């Protein structure tokens, strides 16, 4: 996702003179092409995220479209007040791009994990929260964000994830989920970088005779209510899947929607990370296994719920 981000940024920089790139001292050489073309619209803001977010707001208030980028916890919780006051309150059209969502950087330890950011940003007025599933959705999300006049948060994974789409999905809209695979028994609502794991989950279910619809539910705010209404009316089991805490993420948002709308549900499962720090060393795949977010674990849990 990361390289697609840099590549799409370069294109957007060529197309739109309002685009300005702000980096929190990461992405060594990642932005070389962009910088070669737009040195006057690239700023390494250093390890100073509060200032970076304020700078982004000030630029957006002056008619530019800044993209503020660094590792997920540092572009969210580190400067949350600047996001709340400078960006959201002032409705400054800043595009906040995070790299390393969830357990992407599992090996770096809990300082670099981010399983709370959706919760934080979703609660802020005027903020849209988008979690692209692959490199193509990252490109689509960036293009869609640039069309907005409000703040947008784009929550990316890292680099080298499997590509699900083969091009920018033409029907990508913020707040409109994408059906990846059709199915008839259960509906799996995946947000962000969990999609490859969810596709594998669907494959495992199919082997056991359960047909699963797989949805890239990339926008957590605003919710695609039409998608939810259809899923809960039609499937005997609906599950939300996210590499994020069960407190405040997609599963929470859907739960709120169910309660507020007095929606009749059959089975509803929420897969996410628990209310604890993941203190063990190891990479993302290991963390997912430990946290119950591997395809194998999720398929078993779904089969158990259906039994």
């Amino acid at each position, binding site marked *: 996702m990361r390289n697609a981000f840099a590549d799409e940024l370069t294109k957007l920089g060529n197309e739109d003179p309002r685009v*300005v790139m702000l980096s929190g001292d990461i992405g060594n050489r990642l932005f070389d092409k962009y910088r070669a073309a737009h040195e*006057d*619209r690239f*700023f390494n*803001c*250093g390890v*100073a995220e*509060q*200032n*970076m*977010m*304020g*700078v*982004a*707001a*000030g*630029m*957006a*208030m*002056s*008619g*530019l479209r*800044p993209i503020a980028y660094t590792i997920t916890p540092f572009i969210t919780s580190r400067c949350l*007040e*600047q996001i709340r*006051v*400078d960006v959201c*309150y*002032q*409705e400054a059209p800043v595009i906040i791009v995070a790299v390393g969502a969830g357990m992407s950087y599992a090996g770096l330890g809990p300082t670099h994990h981010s399983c709370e950011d959706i919760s934080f940003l979703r609660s802020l007025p005027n903020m849209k929260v988008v979690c692209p599933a692959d490199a193509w959705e990252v490109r689509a999300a960036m293009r869609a964000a640039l069309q907005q006049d409000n703040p947008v948060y784009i929550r990316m994974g890292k680099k080298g994830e499997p590509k699900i789409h083969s091009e920018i999905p033409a029907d990508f809209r913020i707040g409109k989920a994408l059906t990846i695979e059709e199915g008839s028994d259960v509906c799996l609502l995946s947000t962000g970088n969990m999609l490859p794991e969810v596709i594998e989950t669907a494959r495992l279910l199919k082997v056991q005779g359960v047909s699963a619809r797989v949805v890239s539910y990339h926008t957590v705010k605003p919710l695609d209510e039409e998608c939810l209404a259809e899923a809960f009316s039609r499937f005997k089991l609906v599950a939300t899947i996210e590499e994020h805490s069960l407190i405040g993420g997609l599963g929470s948002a859907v739960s709120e929607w169910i309660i507020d709308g007095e929606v009749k549900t059959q089975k509803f499962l929420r897969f996410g990370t628990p209310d604890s720090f993941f203190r063990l060393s190891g990479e993302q795949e290991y963390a997912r296994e430990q946290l119950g977010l591997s395809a194998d674990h999720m398929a078993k849990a779904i089969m158990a719920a259906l039994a």
Partner: protein
Amino acid sequence: MNVEAGTAKLDVQSLEDAARRLRGKVIEMSHAAGSAHLGSSLSCCDIVAAAYWHVLRIDPTNPKNELRDRFILSKGHAATTIYSALAFRGFYPEHLLETYTKDGGKLAEHPPANSLPGVEAATGSLGHGLPIGNGMALAGRIKGQSYRVYALMSDGECNEGSVWEAAMFAAAQKLENLCVIIDYNKWQATARSNETLALAPLREKWEAFGWDAVEVDGHDIGAVAALMANVPNGSGKPVAIVAHTVKGKGVSFMEDDNNWHYRAPTAEEVVISHKELGLA
């Protein structure tokens, strides 16, 4: 796009009159609302008067003019000062000041976002104005516009780490169209600012952070106006004006008495204050 059209260029005597008028109104508003921060509002009246009646290239009839100078009241708790200045300069009718803190109004105790002409940024949480000012100043550079950006901060506000992040960033980017004014009244909410965090030597700190930093008597309105008007000043650096001020300035029994950070004046005290200011 004529930003000079609405620009005032008052002489020192007239600037002092404008500052006195601001003080009188600020005191009235604090009394009517029973609101805090009067001492902070009074200490920056001369700086705000210099800005709005001498320095800023602004057009009250076109407050969003892209080429205007930007003035950010980063010390948002001095809202009554900027509310009064904007009203007196014609950004909105003066009677709007009577709605200050009233139910359903636009004038809360800190300046709002996107709802009051002339308010460049919502402030109230300290340490936000300068980063935003950095962004505005850089936007001007990117767009080839020569406007200037001013951020008025308090000394207590310099406790915030974001101020120093922003200071280093502005210096690195050589934002010579950016000017910070520190209303150095030596008090923060509950204590002497230098006993709270080691602020001094403040001018030297800004200089060490890469700014062209000067000290001035913040109540010498002519000197303040001259320094603010001389931005960019040819140094190639952002400009920091450390303005030595007195909290509660202008009213004998409020000066340097930090109780007026929270206290609101009685009707009688308003009358005495106005007399002292020569407004009665």
